[in-house]
């Protein structure tokens, strides 16, 4: 039972255009959502996050939108650059008890930005 779903395994975008990566979730108890970026042979690195009480968070070329009623979030990258080519993981946080939280990850979307 996947609580965090990234239904597109891959996405190709031309350099300079917008990349939109999507993520759906089922657990209404998630209180934070995060995007991680992963290059081959490296660990994931944090990109951007959003609280469940907000609907938008922007950081430079990266914007995350949250539609809580639809249980959907998306990551927009504008403009896309070849260095953005990586696997992007959506993750969601919920409380696991005793003052601790856990992240649940989606399967990832491989973004390829074509020069």
């Amino acid at each position: 039972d996947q609580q965090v779903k990234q239904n597109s395994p891959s996405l190709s975008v031309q350099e300079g255009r917008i990349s939109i990566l999507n993520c759906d979730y089922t657990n209404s108890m998630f209180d934070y959502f995060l995007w991680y970026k992963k290059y081959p042979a490296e660990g994931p690195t944090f990109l951007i996050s959003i609280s469940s009480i907000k609907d938008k968070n922007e950081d430079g070329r990266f914007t995350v939108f949250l539609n809580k009623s639809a249980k959907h979030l998306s990551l927009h990258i504008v403009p896309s650059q070849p260095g953005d080519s990586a696997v992007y993981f959506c993750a969601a946080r919920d409380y696991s008890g005793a003052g601790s939280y856990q992240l649940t990850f989606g399967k990832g979307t491989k973004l390829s930005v074509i020069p």
Partner: protein
Amino acid sequence: NAGVTQTPKFRILKIGQSMTLQCTQDMNHNYMYWYRQDPGMGLKLIYYSVGAGITDKGEVPNGYNVSRSTTEDFPLRLELAAPSQTSVYFCASSYMPSGTTDTQYFGPGTRLTVL
């Protein structure tokens, strides 16, 4: 700061062998985590620790053990390796509970193959 370091980078085990995956962080983070990533899948939490001497199970703990005797180190032990444990293992740490603007920092991973 080296961040989160993991050793070894690669390992091949025979069925039934045991090994310890090492993880060290030099950021004085309280929270540490072990994840596994199977091909085409997201990261799944194996074990986590909220501080020295305190560990707890994540989503997929069977076949693994952990200990946390110091703030810096969080080794993961495989007692009887099985082919189902073939995966890439990531260690992560965070200062606060995961999420918000304090994210988890990941090590580069250990690629384990069990034959």
